[in-house]
Each structure stands twice: as C-alpha cells, then as structure tokens.
C-alpha cells in the first residue's frame, strides 16, 4: 500500500466516522457539515475528471451543479403543487429518479457547450466555459417561473425508498455512498483505456492524434461525464439545503470547485475530498472567528498557489506518480 492509499483510506474513514460519532452524541450540526463536505467533494470529483485527468480547465462547472440543483428543486415544487411537469409527465419526489434526470440534463447541456468550447484551448477554453455558465446564470435570474433571483425553497427533502431523508445522518449516508461511488468510477475511468487516452491527450494532444485517437472526442466524453457527476452533486446539494438559487450557478461556485481541487491536490483520487474538508473547515472555523473569512481564505489560497503547489495530498504523500 502506498502512502497515498493509506491517507485516502484514513480520509474516507474520517469522513464516515466523524458524523456517526457526532450523531450519537446528539450534534446534528456536525452531521450537516460532513454532508456538505461529501456533496462538495462529489461535485469536485466531477470537475477533477475534466481538470485533473483531462487538463480541461473548465471555469463553468457551476452551470452543471446548478442545473442538477434546479432539477431537484423544480421536481419538488411541481410535486408539492401536484402540477404535471409537461403535458402529462408527472413530477416525482423520488431521489433516484431525480438523480437520473439531473445527470441526464447535465450531460445533455454539457454536450453542446463542450462541443463548442473544445474547439478552442488554453485561455479561450477557460473564458468560454465561464461565459456559457454565465449565460445559464442570467437565464435563471431573468426567468421568473422558478423564483428568478430569489431561488426556490423546497418545503421538504425529496424521498429515498426506505430511508428517512429528513434526518441528518441517513441523508449523510446517502451522500457519502454517492461520493464513494463517484470515486470508484473515477478510479475505473483513470485506469481504463479511455482514461489513458484522456491523460495522454492532456500531456500531448498531437501525439495522441498521431496514433489514431481523436483527442476531441475523448475530451468531449470526459467533459460530459464530468458535468454529469457535478450535476448529480447539485441535486444532492439542493436537497441538503432544501433550497436552490442562482448562487449555485454563479461563477464564484465554479471558482470554489477549482479551489477545492487545488487545496486537496489536482488529479489525485482523494484530492477533492481533502480539499472539501479543508474548505468547509476554513469556512466554519474562520467564519466563526470573523465575518471577513473570505479575506483570509484569499490569503491562504494565494499562499498555496504561490508557495505550496500540490495541495494537501501533495504535502502529505509526496510527488504524484504521473508527473
């Protein structure tokens, strides 16, 4: 077992054990905090697939996160008011169905965005993904049917068969299971032929093309897959807060997802998990000390980018294998 595997295992156990302990001590707040970590980590696992493996610096992943959230919010609202979604399609409060819809919507939106954005590279790609996300953000703000600027409140969490999702611990376990499933998928993709091609395309697209693999197609599939995972996380996030608003679509959200990955360690399996832990910890601890915690977060982030490259996992487990 390498040092990184040991640390990964410890992180996974810590994230599972801490909320169970907190729940048994009657501290539901910490369970919610852990759920927040799990959901943000899940969103960042999605981005890590595009950014870490594929080298695609998408500054617009909040779009998929928010879309997933809006799917959950819109479904819940329609089901609550007993209105059909479209002509005769009924809305549902069943989480699995909502997740599938959120994943499908994120994937369907990611295909055209990816197809246009991937024609470009470098700075253009960053700015175009950002611009598309802003387009969806402004649409959400100016479209009054689902709350516009105020967002949508959900009267209760959607349902999961056999689980009481209103209680913090069962909902945490759902999110934790989703995170572990996504990490498993990330590991499988990383080790697959597709994953090798994707990483090769990051290192040298021309050579990949020369051996007969079109980098564009590989990257497009990776981009869509990454958006689908992030969209899934968005649906869970909306249910966690019982609220979805344009802030989930904002470019600050996109920036934060990148920050999570960098705090933890880019391209590493558990990078997003470590990053989400640090981020939520900062948010909670610094936010408790001062209202100006974003000022301190900015300073810390600046310090990490300038002086401590490789993030927390880079610090703890040495150089990654692939560099």
């Amino acid at each position, binding site marked *: 077992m390498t040092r990184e595997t040991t640390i990964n295992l410890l992180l996974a156990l810590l994230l599972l054990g801490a909320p169970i302990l907190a729940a048994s001590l009657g501290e539901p707040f910490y369970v919610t905090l852990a759920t927040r970590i799990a959901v943000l980590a899940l969103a960042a696992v999605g981005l890590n697939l595009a*950014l870490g493996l594929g080298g695609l*610096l998408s*500054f617009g992943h909040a779009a998929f996160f928010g879309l997933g959230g809006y799917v959950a919010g819109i479904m819940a609202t329609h089901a609550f008011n007993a209105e059909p979604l479209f002509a005769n399609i009924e809305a549902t409060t069943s989480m699995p169905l909502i997740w599938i819809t959120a994943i499908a919507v994120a994937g369907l939106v990611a295909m055209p965005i990816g197809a*246009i954005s991937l*024609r*470009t590279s*470098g*700075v*253009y790609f*960053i*700015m*175009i993904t*950002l*611009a*598309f996300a*802003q*387009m969806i953000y*402004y*649409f959400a*703000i*100016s*479209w*009054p049917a689902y709350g516009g600027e105020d967002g949508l409140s959900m009267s209760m969490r959607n349902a999961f068969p056999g689980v009481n999702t209103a209680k913090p611990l069962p909902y945490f376990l759902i999110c934790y299971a989703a995170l572990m499933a996504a990490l498993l998928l990330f590991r499988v993709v990383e080790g697959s032929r597709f994953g090798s091609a994707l990483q090769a395309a990051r290192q040298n697209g021309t050579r990949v093309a020369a051996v007969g693999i079109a980098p564009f197609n590989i990257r497009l599939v990776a981009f869509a897959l990454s958006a689908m995972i992030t969209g899934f996380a968005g649906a869970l996030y909306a249910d966690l807060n019982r609220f979805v608003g344009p802030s989930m679509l904002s*470019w600050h959200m996109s*920036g934060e997802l*990148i*920050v999570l990955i*960098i705090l933890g360690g*880019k391209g590493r399996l558990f990078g997003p998990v470590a990053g989400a832990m640090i981020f939520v910890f900062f948010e909670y601890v610094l936010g408790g000390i001062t209202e*100006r915690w*974003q*000022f301190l*977060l*900015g*300073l810390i*982030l*600046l310090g990490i*980018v*300038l002086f401590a*490259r490789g993030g927390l996992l880079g610090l703890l487990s040495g150089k990654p294998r692939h560099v």
Partner: protein
Amino acid sequence: MFTALLIEQLLNGLQLGVMLFLMAAGLTLIFGVMGLINLAHGSLYMIGAFACATVAAATGSFWIGLIASLAAAAGVGAIIEVAVIRRLYDRDHLDQVLATFALILILSEGARWLFGSFPLYLDIPPLLQGAVPLPGGGQYQLYRLAIIGVGIAVAVGLYLLISRTRLGMRIRAGESDREMIGALGVDIGTLYTVVFALGAALAGLAGALVGALQSVQVGMGEPVLILAFVVIVIGGIGSIKGALVGAVIVGVVDTMGRFLLPSLLALTMPASQATTIGAALASMLIYVVMALILAFRPSGLFSAQS
C-alpha cells in the same frame, strides 16, 4: 418617436461598448504582452469607482475624483503586479486563475471592510449635466455622450501609444519575443509593471465613469469582467483592435436585444409573456453571438497569434 428611441438605444449600446472597451483593452494588453489571465481586473474597476466616489465626496469635485481613480487603480495594479502577479508569468493558466481569484476575494472583502456593504453614490459633474436633443425628437444625456467621447479618445490614444511611441514599440516587441527584448537591454520587469498599471488605470477609469450612472458597490466589477472576457474572446485575445470591435458588438447587441426582443416577440404572443421571455432571451443573446463567432473563428475575429 420610434426612431428617436432607436437612436437613443443605439447610443446606449455604444456607451456600454466603449466602457467595455476600457476594460477589455487592459485585459487583452496584459494577456498579449505577459500571457497572463487576470480575473482581478474587475476588482481594479471597483477600486476606481470607490476612489472616485470617496474623493469626489470629500473634495466636492468629480474631476479630482477621476484623477484619484486613475491613480488608485494604477497604484493598486502596480502593487499587486510586484507582489503577486510577477510570480505567475511562467506558471500555467490554472495557477493564474486561482491566484487572481484569490486576489478578488481579498480585494472585495477588503473593500467591504473599508467602505461597508452599503452602496456609495456619485453625482454627474455639473459641467456634463443636462441633455442634448436627438434627431427625430427626444433627448440624450450629455454625460453618456461624454463617456463615448472618452472611449474614442482612449482608443485613439492607445493606438498612438502602441504604434508611435518607444513604450509602444517595446510593448509590441514584448508580445512577439520577450526573451529577445530582454537580451536587447530592455528592463522587462519594469515594462511589465508599467503595462499592468496602464491596464489597471483603464479599468479604474471605466469604473469611475460608470460610477456616476449606477451605484458604487462591492462586486460591481464582476459582471463587467465577464462581459469583458466575452469581448476579448470575440475580438481575439491580445488584439486591441479586436477588443474595440468586440466591445462595440457586445454593447450594441446586448442593448438592442433587450430593447427589441420583447417587442418582436409581442408580435406572436401575449405582451406579458413576450416581456418575460424576451428579457430572458436577451440576457443570453451575447453568449449566443459569441458561440456563433467562435464556431466559425475559434480564435476570435482579429487573432493576434495567427
């Protein structure tokens, strides 16, 4: 009456375009010369607006405020270039994005610390109050016309600076081969600081000019920053000419879309529905235009690299 309204909206679009040009020119210059993507450019815009509002309120003169905004934005720009940005030139885009994102957090929260969360207001200077008659009836705010004038003056000034002066020659040389001009004895460090401060001053000027039209508050720079990104992506990153053309396209398309789309849709559907759908579509219009342009020219209209 419709013609007058149309002319008024066209001028509004031009004014927005000119303001975006001030932002985009700095961004594209910094990218062209130093290869740096600067997300904190919107914060410099905000700093310009705050400096102008504060100094104008203290001295009672908009003009002193305007000078203060240039000085403050250029000064803060030079400080962050020396302290942070300088270390990012040979890093990849990811590090640049993150570090300048961190700068936004620091500068926004810092501004909120200093000035509070309440917006400040800035009055239009007495000299530029009032309106000018438009052909076809109707009137147009003199101040907005003055902004268009300033924008044109800056565009001409930048053109002359870059094509006619020694500094401009060095900037152009820096764009094509930074090692070579270093070898020829030009102090690249200073040149980069000057270019960054120049871009920052333009952003500060834009912020101060717009500050008199809307409220001055934390976060005001971010929507403008993203529009400026759209502008330079359309125009071709690194090209000042592209920034000018892109800015006018974005300004006019955005304003005209908001003006015309609801009334166009009203021809086919009930008026209330047309207003909401029209507004929602208009807010997406420039991104659609951007996607169309990029579908045909992936590196923008006037790519500096090609």
